[in-house]
């Protein structure tokens, strides 16, 4: 039973990060290879605060979130202001992620590349579910607000959006900061769940996995990536599939989805739509 709980907890922690990236990639249309770095910042900041300074858990988490958002501004402002096209932006944020990892590996307070063991295990399933619930509510409200509408407009047609008076740079930056905040929260929860973090846990490989969940779930959806991310964590554990095959599957799934069902599981729809039965319509 405790095994199921632990898998569920891990899945929910993952879902928060995926939700963050869904806001940025799914709703604002910018491709990012570096969001695992924001998880890393959230993880390390909150872990250092609880480990060395005995800061209360929720305060430490909040600080982690704030740090991630601040970091996203550091990379976001120069790159988004320069209006880098998507390939360049993806490389730039990838570079940011890698550079961050090097920095984490070289600070003595993070204990370097060997990692920080012995973090207090404050994260429990109720805590994670609470956080996840809050995140979903905030995301839903954000995306339904005019800020969210601006994001979607920017994704669909940036030129038209700008002509309609939407400030591209501010919208994208806001979206980035929000998604980074989510990833920071996820990282903080993860650190206090595994009790051990290492810089190498927050690199391109993990960014790809988060992205895979967003794509598989469907761009433009909140519930799609949530479902996909849960399946990505829970299915391999339930089927006791070896870690290596899991990554093979991720890769294959990404390709197949792009080829045959680019809208993913629930592209541009929400799971609630599936349960409503409008007269005479299928899906």
């Amino acid at each position, binding site marked *: 039973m405790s095994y199921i709980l632990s898998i569920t907890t891990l899945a929910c922690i993952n879902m928060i990060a995926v939700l963050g990236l869904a806001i940025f990639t799914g709703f604002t249309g910018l491709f990012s290879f570096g969001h695992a770095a924001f998880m890393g910042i959230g993880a390390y900041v909150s872990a250092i605060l609880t480990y060395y300074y005995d800061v209360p858990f929720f305060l430490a988490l909040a600080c982690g979130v704030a740090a991630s958002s601040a970091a996203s501004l550091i990379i976001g402002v120069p790159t988004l202001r320069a209006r880098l096209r998507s*390939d360049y932006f993806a490389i730039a944020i990838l570079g940011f992620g890698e550079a961050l990892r090097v920095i984490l590996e070289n600070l003595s307070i993070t204990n370097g590349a060997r990692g920080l063991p012995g973090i207090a295990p404050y994260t429990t399933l109720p805590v994670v579910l609470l956080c996840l619930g809050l995140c979903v509510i905030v995301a839903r409200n954000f995306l339904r607000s005019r800020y969210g509408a601006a994001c979607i407009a920017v994704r669909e047609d940036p030129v038209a959006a700008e002509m309609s008076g939407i400030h591209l740079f501010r919208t994208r930056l806001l979206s980035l900061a929000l998604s980074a905040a989510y990833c920071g929260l996820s990282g903080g929860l993860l650190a206090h769940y595994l009790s051990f973090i290492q810089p190498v846990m927050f690199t391109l490989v993990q960014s790809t996995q988060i992205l895979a969940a967003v794509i598989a779930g469907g761009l433009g959806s909140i519930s799609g990536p949530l479902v996909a991310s849960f399946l990505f964590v829970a299915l391999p554990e339930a089927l006791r599939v070896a870690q290596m095959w899991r990554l093979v599957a991720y890769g294959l799934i990404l390709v197949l989805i792009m080829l045959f069902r680019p809208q993913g599981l629930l592209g541009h729809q929400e799971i609630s739509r599936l349960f409503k039965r409008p007269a005479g319509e299928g899906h």
Partner: protein
Amino acid sequence: MFLQTLFTGLSVGGIYALMAVGYSLIFSILNFSNFAHGSVIMLGAYMGLGLASKFGLKLGFVVAGAMAGGGLLAVLNERLAYRKLRHRNAPSLYLMISAMGCSVFLENMVYVTIGSRFYAFPEFFTRRVVTFLGSSVSVMDLFALAFSLLAIGALGLFLARSRTGIAIRAGVCDMTMCSLMGVDTDRLVALVFLLAGALGGLAGTFMGVRYLVYPTMGWITNKAYIAAVIGGLGSLLGAIVGGVILGVVETFISAYVSSILRDVFSFTILIALLVCMPNGLFGKSMEERV
């Protein structure tokens, strides 16, 4: 020490340049970043390794075999993962995601089938090192330099002089017009992938000989992407220049500043460059960059 560091930097940069050229080639014609190029390089290395250890072939044959294998692999990659999306006029985002998926898939397939062990090429040269002005240059590096120059030179000549080369350059300018002129774009794209894959196989083999062969060696192509971006995506000259600059700067930072923080400097330079020159050094400027 300065000269030695320079030689080392040129050696590192040469590999980056070779990888970046293949990457830029594909970008120039299809306008997307082929993240699967790293896997082609990695598999090229494994193919070269197989030829060298199982069949005991000499370096020349190994390189030729790896180039052929890499080219074929890239063509297959395009056929399976990208062609359908191209025909559907899918946004380049989708192509990038598909490429990422291919890369993850191939790398981990090697991991689960061949295994994660590190392998080394058999030693090809008995005399390992030559001294030049007090600094050492390895024979392998000289060979790699010669061969790379040959390959890139041949590519340049092909693009400039031959009919197919002209067709490729036409496709780079405007794919639609090109097909209206009667060029079979599918074959054209396949040919470009073949060339890029051949260069990738070459780069992979050289990397494998210089270092080791292992499933995650494709990640070094992140550096190649950065080199291609610095030089300007889509420009072959830019890829070469970007690669060499990146290699030399990295090595100097490693030797004179800090070998550990080297990557932080590299990425900062990248971001600074992108902010100042959003199209890299030689990149084609895009009207709609939004």
